[in-house]
């Protein structure tokens, strides 16, 4: 939806033929970025219910203390968890192109059901991640005691 709007804006800008056309896209991007931020803050101020209180006023309602030096040491578990996150993050990167092309693999045009083959491959790929997950589990990455 936003994408379509943006395309429309760019098209109009490009067709207007002014001299800064080349950078029109950048300008639009900047406008949208700033606009999104400002609009959100403004809207929530006006629309949202507002409650006040000591805990409510803090930055993180989860109870983390935001005041003090940011250069504290974190528990090393955070790093390990971050690495595990990275694993799944990268997995998603590979799933996306597959998911986008998957619908065009099946059908009458291709003999022998290419889609099943690719589904099998992707399942094998997911399986490798599951092996990594099991390994991390056994290593105690997800334990908090």
């Amino acid at each position, binding site marked *: 939806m936003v994408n379509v709007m943006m395309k429309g804006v*760019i*098209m109009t800008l*490009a*067709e207007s033929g002014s001299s800064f*056309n*080349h950078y*029109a*896209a950048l300008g639009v991007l900047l406008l949208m970025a700033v606009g999104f931020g400002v609009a959100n803050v403004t809207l929530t101020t006006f629309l949202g219910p507002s409650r006040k209180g000591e805990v409510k006023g803090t930055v993180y309602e989860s109870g983390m203390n935001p005041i003090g030096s940011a250069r504290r040491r974190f528990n*090393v578990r955070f*790093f390990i968890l*971050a*690495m595990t996150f*990275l694993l799944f*993050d*990268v997995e998603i*990167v*590979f799933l996306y*192109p597959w998911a986008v092309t998957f619908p065009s693999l099946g059908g009458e045009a291709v003999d022998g059901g290419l889609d099943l083959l690719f589904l099998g491959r992707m399942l094998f790929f997911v399986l490798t991640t599951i092996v990594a997950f099991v390994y991390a589990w056994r290593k105690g990455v997800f334990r908090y005691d």
Partner: protein
Amino acid sequence: MPETLTALGLSHYLMTGAVLFVLGLIGFVTRRNLIIMFLCTEMMFQGVALSLVAGAKFHANVTGQTFVIFVLTIAAAEAALALGLVVMMFRRRGTLDVDAWQAMSG
């Protein structure tokens, strides 16, 4: 894409990629903080990725884009490894300055 937006040629993208790569290289050689140095290698990788995507667009095939996905994967693996090594070094030495480690020389 409208034509006006593609007036930037292949060489512009390649130059940007080269600049990113060289900036990263210079940073890697001159900086002495491990994390900054690692960020510099990441910057070199991004320069490469930009060149690859530009090449893919120029040749109108997707091989370059596929290559970029694999590059990103390797970059992520390296990031995880770098994080582990940096944490380990910091626990041992209490600093991330490379000049602090001169146990071996010669």
